């Protein structure tokens, strides 16, 4: 009873000789689990993870693409009466109501018509063709008022298959009134982008929109003339019209016309179609409903002896206004082509009655052709007109790893397994387009990198922090001064001062952060809707984060920083770029890049050769 004892000693002595054997089932469990492990110990290869990411992105691209393509087809605006009608005010003369964009084509003869067309309608599957005819207005007697009142008369709708085009044809005063009308139209330049007069045949007229190289060239010269016309507000006499282009163009300004010239070169859209009007002698006013921008329309008319056609060329102005592709329709005078005919026409115009003409092509065909042309044109556009600069915000999952064994932390850990981490990089890129193929790119990215060194044993040596084998490339922070780390690989008890204070399954997590400034050259190898680039270059890395953690049971503990990291380092980069064009100015990019770091560590990097795999994606805007 009186024999007292320290309780610690009681337990220590007691358990010295204490042993209990475990149940046999424990071994059986262990055995079965060892068997299982053999089979399940297959890691998912890295490339599969990346393939997964890539697949997701492709799906996304596809989705966006489908939506956008659908949008193009369905987003057309159908003409509303508001758009179709022009209001010509009695007192003030003719004015074009806001929101309507028309080109007037005057007939030297008796009648004139207003054709209002809307490109979007033309492109749409389901477009209504309306032909408004006006037969009452004749010659010099016609008044503007009459014009107004008559616009609704004689409206007819043609449905051609699924496709139809909205064309309003109204008569307009001609001859002496032309001048007035033009002047009035000039007053309303903001609304009226272009005016065109065309001499007209008496009876029947087919309207053809057609591609023609002659026409293209000619139009350019014509438009130059037109400039003058605009400046001087010269009114063309009917005779002049018939002789030369049969047109007058009234533009907003020279600038508009110039733009037109520019865009005409690149973007020529031609619609071939005919509209037969019964018994109309017509002047044609061709107009466009354009969502944001309206363009001057240059219309030329072509008469051939035999066919009596009006050739209408339709231009798209998509370049200027972006997605809301605007359309100008042009009546093109094909005088160059058929000068003799034209002369005859001139004669005709003076009073010859034209014979009704069989329709050569249906509007349906014309629309089909137009669509085809539009596609061609877009491709052309890409070749001819590219914007020099693009800016592209981007984000990327980046994977950091080493090509060889070796540890930048200590030789002790050089044989330990390293596990790269998937982190994020984001930034902004700027590209300068040198030519169709080559682009110089620069930018700035923030990038975080990290990797684990696995199988590290951590123990603390409480007495002296210097006694144990410390990892030489870490500057330990004060709170971690008692920590020692060794590879559980080359484990040696003699290295450890006090027994047992050891954590086995830990790893060392090194985290680096950089500001990356890439300078790269990309070379376009494929130029389809999905462009493919080869990219190569160098990056400069500016260190902005340097941390080392121990990781035990997914708990991180900051222990210090590496002392062998260079503040500035470089990498060589190579990769592919996939660019998906969403619109002229807007691309989706997807760029798997491999970046090999050259001198990230200043010394003792232990043959650690880090690289960065990143899948950069983002949007680029051209300007």
């Amino acid at each position, binding site marked *: 009873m009186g024999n007292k004892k320290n309780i610690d000693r*009681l337990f220590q002595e007691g358990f010295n000789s204490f042993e209990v*054997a475990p149940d046999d089932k424990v071994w059986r469990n262990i055995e079965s689990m060892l068997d299982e492990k053999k089979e399940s110990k297959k890691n998912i290869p890295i490339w599969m993870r990346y393939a997964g990411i890539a697949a997701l992105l492709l799906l996304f691209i596809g989705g966006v693409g489908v939506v956008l393509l659908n949008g193009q087809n369905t987003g057309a605006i159908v003409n509303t009466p508001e758009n179709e009608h022009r209001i010509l005010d009695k007192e003030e003369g003719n004015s074009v109501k806001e929101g309507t964009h028309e080109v007037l084509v005057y007939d030297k003869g008796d009648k004139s018509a207003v054709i209002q067309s809307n490109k979007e309608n033309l492109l749409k599957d389901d477009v209504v063709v309306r032909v408004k005819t006006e037969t009452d207005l004749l010659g010099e007697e016609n008044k503007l008022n009459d014009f107004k009142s008559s616009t609704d008369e004689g409206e007819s709708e043609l449905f051609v298959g699924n496709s139809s085009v909205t064309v309003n044809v109204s008569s307009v005063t001609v001859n002496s009134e032309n001048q007035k009308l033009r002047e009035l139209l000039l007053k309303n330049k903001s609304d009226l982008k272009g005016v065109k007069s065309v001499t007209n045949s008496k009876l029947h007229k087919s309207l053809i929109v057609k591609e023609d190289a002659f026409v293209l060239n000619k139009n350019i010269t014509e438009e130059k003339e037109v400039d003058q016309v605009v400046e001087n507000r010269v009114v063309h006499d009917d005779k002049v019209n018939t002789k030369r282009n049969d047109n007058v163009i009234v533009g907003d300004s020279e600038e508009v016309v110039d733009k037109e010239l520019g865009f005409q070169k690149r973007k020529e859209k031609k619609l071939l179609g005919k509209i037969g009007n019964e018994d109309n002698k017509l002047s044609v006013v061709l107009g466009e409903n354009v969502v944001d921008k309206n363009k001057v329309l240059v219309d030329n008319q072509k008469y051939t002896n035999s066919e009596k056609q009006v050739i209408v060329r339709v231009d798209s102005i998509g370049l200027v206004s972006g997605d809301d592709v605007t359309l100008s329709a042009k009546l093109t005078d094909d005088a160059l082509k058929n000068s003799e005919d034209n002369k005859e026409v001139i004669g005709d115009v003076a009073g010859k009655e034209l014979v009704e003409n069989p329709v050569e092509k249906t509007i349906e065909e014309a629309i089909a052709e137009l669509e085809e042309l539009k596609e061609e044109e877009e491709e052309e556009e890409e070749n001819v007109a590219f914007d020099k600069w693009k800016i592209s915000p981007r984000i990327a999952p980046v994977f950091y790893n080493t090509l060889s064994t070796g540890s930048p932390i200590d030789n002790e850990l050089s044989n330990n397994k390293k596990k790269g981490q998937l982190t994020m990089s984001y930034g902004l890129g700027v590209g300068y387009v040198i030519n169709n193929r080559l682009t110089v790119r620069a930018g700035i990215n923030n990038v975080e990198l990290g990797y684990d060194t696995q199988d590290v044993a951590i123990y603390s040596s*409480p007495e002296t922090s210097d006694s144990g084998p410390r990892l030489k490339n870490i500057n330990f922070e004060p709170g971690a001064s008692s920590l020692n780390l060794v590879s559980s690989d080359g484990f040696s*008890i003699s290295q450890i001062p006090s027994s047992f204070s050891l954590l086995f399954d830990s790893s060392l997590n090194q985290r680096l952060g950089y500001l990356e400034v890439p300078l790269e050259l990309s070379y376009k190898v494929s130029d389809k809707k999905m462009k493919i680039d080869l990219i190569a270059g160098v990056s400069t890395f500016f260190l902005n984060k340097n941390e080392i953690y121990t990781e035990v049971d997914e708990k991180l503990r900051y222990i210090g920083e590496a002392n062998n990291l260079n503040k500035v380092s470089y990498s060589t980069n190579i990769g592919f770029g996939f660019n998906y064009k969403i619109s002229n100015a807007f691309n989706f990019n997807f760029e798997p890049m491999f970046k090999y770091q050259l001198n990230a560590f200043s010394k003792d990097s232990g043959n650690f050769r880090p690289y960065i795999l990143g899948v950069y994606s983002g949007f680029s805007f051209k300007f």
Partner: protein
Amino acid sequence: MSLEQLIIKCKKNNRKAQGELYGLYATKLFTLCLKYSKNYAESEDNLQDAFLTIFNKIKQYKGNGSFEGWMKRIVINTALQRYRKASVLDVIKDDDLEEELVEVEVSQVSLEFLLEIIQELPDKYRLVFNLYVLDGFSHREIAEMLNISTGTSKSNLSRARKILKGKIEENQFINKKLLENGK
């Protein structure tokens, strides 16, 4: 077969060698597990997990130092991990009790009883008591291992001792009564 040969074979995943190694050390390590665990079943689980770790990591044992010591560390680590995951250790208040000498009268105390009262201790007390008293870790080491402060380690140890003492004395008192009644 020498231990070295056994280890080499175990590194090659030789199942027979693994079984032999288990046979050699299971008892010793299971006893260790018993002290660190709440009960018999948990000890078995720990032993199982520890041996799986040993077999997986045996390639990392390069023959420096005691193999038994290496295995013991794994066992203890396995036991500790269970509680780290449960984070029972975080909630301990740090009221820096002074280490005091706790003494009990020595009488008939069975090992089974000692083990029983150790296992009955709350986890946080049991681990600290085992690490400090039975396996010789310093408070500083314990603090590192359990991610607690040294003060907490000390106060937990002190409480563990008091609880154990109380249980031993209670047991002795009962035994005494029984003896007296038995007279």
